[in-house]
């Protein structure tokens, strides 16, 4: 009885942790290169959920396709595509690839645009200036969604047949949880290899170590920074679509709490350190689920932030972060 509950909470925690890890990577990537906390990142998560929702509706919702076809005649061809997307497992797979692809690319470009217009002009300003600019972007995006889309929460369509798979010992994992975990792990592995093995990854690491020296060595700093602002929001967008599917609704304010939690995860793991963000994300997700299961749901946020304080007191650099000497 007890063991099965612990097992089940671990499954919940891993799924939640995967989402935190995806968002935390965005904070840590940007911090590593720019030494700046991108507070607009939680809105990338929210935007991802909306882009994913609208793409999914365009691919699978009959009435929405019919209405869209009235405005754009070529959309009428989508009706037959809809049958394909919702008809078989393979169609659903392709559908998800498109949904996640569109969300990643759209939100990635949004991140690049935000960097270009809200942060780049402030690159040589005092450290506080881009931080405040980021908060401004965050408030702007939330209110834009509130005004142009809806103030109400929108239900996320249930397209994937979700059923539980028994793992034994009374623990089960749903197909959606498997999808989230597998996708997360694949993306994390890809990013890790990308940064560690490729030439552009090397340029990113070099920029993160010393931006000016890297520039002198012939690295195009602007495109490296733009790349970081593409990858981070794109991963956040994936987490956003998953959150919509997993919890069942999207709303303009949905980014706030996951954003803060993921930031916490990035700090716990050592901000600026990619593997640290992943470790921090999973650790936080599991701790939160266990706290909700064994203490009380009301205490899960308390426990999460108490751990942040403890880590900051005893390991100010985070679990995997090296204590960096203040740059002069």
């Amino acid at each position, binding site marked *: 009885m007890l063991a099965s*509950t612990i097992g089940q909470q671990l499954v*919940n925690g891993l799924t939640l942790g995967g989402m935190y890890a995806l968002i935390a990577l965005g904070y840590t990537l940007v911090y590593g290169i720019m030494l700046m906390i991108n507070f607009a990142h939680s809105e990338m998560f929210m935007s991802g959920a909306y882009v994913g929702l609208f793409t999914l509706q365009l691919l699978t919702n009959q009435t929405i396709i019919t209405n869209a076809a009235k405005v754009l005649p070529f959309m009428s061809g989508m009706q037959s595509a809809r049958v394909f997307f919702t008809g078989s497992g393979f169609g659903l797979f392709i559908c998800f690839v498109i949904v996640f692809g569109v969300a990643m690319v759209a939100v990635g470009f949004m991140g690049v645009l935000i960097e270009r217009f809200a942060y780049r002009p402030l690159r040589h300003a005092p450290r506080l200036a881009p931080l405040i600019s980021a908060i401004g972007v965050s408030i702007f995006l939330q209110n834009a969604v509130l005004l142009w889309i809806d103030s109400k929460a929108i239900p996320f369509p249930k397209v994937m047949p979700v059923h539980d798979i028994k793992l034994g010992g009374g623990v089960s994992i749903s197909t959606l949880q498997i999808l989230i975990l597998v996708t997360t792990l694949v993306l994390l592995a890809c990013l890790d290899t990308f940064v560690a093995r490729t030439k552009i990854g090397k340029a990113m690491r070099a920029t993160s170590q010393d931006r000016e020296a890297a520039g002198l060595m012939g690295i195009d700093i602007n495109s490296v920074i733009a790349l970081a602002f593409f990858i981070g929001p794109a991963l956040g967008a994936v987490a956003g679509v998953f959150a919509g599917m997993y*919890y*069942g*609704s999207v*709303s303009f304010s*949905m980014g706030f709490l996951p954003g803060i939690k993921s930031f916490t995860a990035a700090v716990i793991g050592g901000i600026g350190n990619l593997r640290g963000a992943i470790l921090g994300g999973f650790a936080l997700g599991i701790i939160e*689920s266990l706290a909700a299961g064994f203490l009380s*749901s009301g205490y899960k946020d308390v426990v999460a932030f108490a751990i942040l304080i403890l880590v900051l007191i005893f390991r100010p650099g985070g679990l995997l972060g090296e204590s960096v000497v203040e740059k002069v």
Partner: protein
Amino acid sequence: MSMGKASKYVALIAVLVVMAMMVTACGGSTASTSTGTSKTATVKVAVGAPLTAGAVALGKGMERGAKLAIADVNASAAAKKAGITFEVFSGDDQGDPKTGVNVANQFASDSKVIGVMGHLNSGVSIPASKVYNQANLVMISPASTNPALTQQGLKNVFRVCTIDSVQGPSAADSASKDLSKKVAFVVDDSTPYGVGLADEFAKQFEKDGGKVAGREKTGDKDTDFKALVTKIGAAGPDIVYYGGIYNSGALLSKQLKEGGVKVPLMGGDGLYDGEYIKLAGTAAEGDFATSVGLPLDLLPKGQDFTAEFKKAYPGEEIAAYDAYSYDAATVIMNAAVEVAGKLGADKVSTTAGKKAVIDAVAKTDFEGITGKISFDSKGDTTNKAITLYTVTSGKWGPFKK
């Protein structure tokens, strides 16, 4: 030099005196013209509700109800005779106590506001009521059901909905007697509304011989209930009671059923809205909610209200508090019309006028859309009817055994 300086001051003072005289003369002349002709005035009825965040579907309904009532009262013979016209002044409290107090201060600082119809959330109504008390503004909530609201001893605070200490136990009685549920898991959203309702439910459910298998707190903006669902599943209840609003309640219901805990979710009036079904989807089927009063189509004036509503808002659905807000706004305006008849329409927005409005509201006794409306000494409605609703084929309807 010193003489020159002094004469400058004299000139300045002279100008100020002349200006002051002109201002008072102007004031005097307008006052005399308004007493000379028939005294007319336009005053504002403030509507405090969540309009952009929180329980927006219910908040928008409050605004709709108030607007309908204002149009009807403005067209009535009594208001025309008293020379008083009403305008709506909406404030968006976002279901948040801090924002709510800001909105309350905004209402209080507008001298034309003569009363407040609001707020929705008990957590907002309670702090806001203190602001209105200092400004001598009457406040009638159509929806705040936490008993504490009217237990503060504030003379200006009223409500037209039944309180949680009636609604919670009524839900518990229905669960144990009508639905024969034995084991309940009780969850709340940590707001005064949710906690009050959940506590009252739990108390009565145990009194009725049921067992409360667990008592949990969540946040009113939470979306992640997965860990909680696992815990509820392990406790093995045959009903889950949720004290809170539909935004989170719908997600809890959805995640419960996805997590294999296939028992109905029951809640209070905060769940009783079409948005709940939209968000929860098929998971909402068979869920329960109690709501204040009787269903509209069972009330004598309900049909008329439905017809009027459909005409004014084609394509929209009546939410839980449209009719209550209509009644609450009407009570405020009736009192204002009465005061206008006694003191003159231009005196309603003075301090004495506002105090007279509070006294007139306290003596209210009229047949509203939602039934007979009168208040006890604390300001609670004397109408204590509660109805149990359930979701069948994607629609809320009264529960029949």
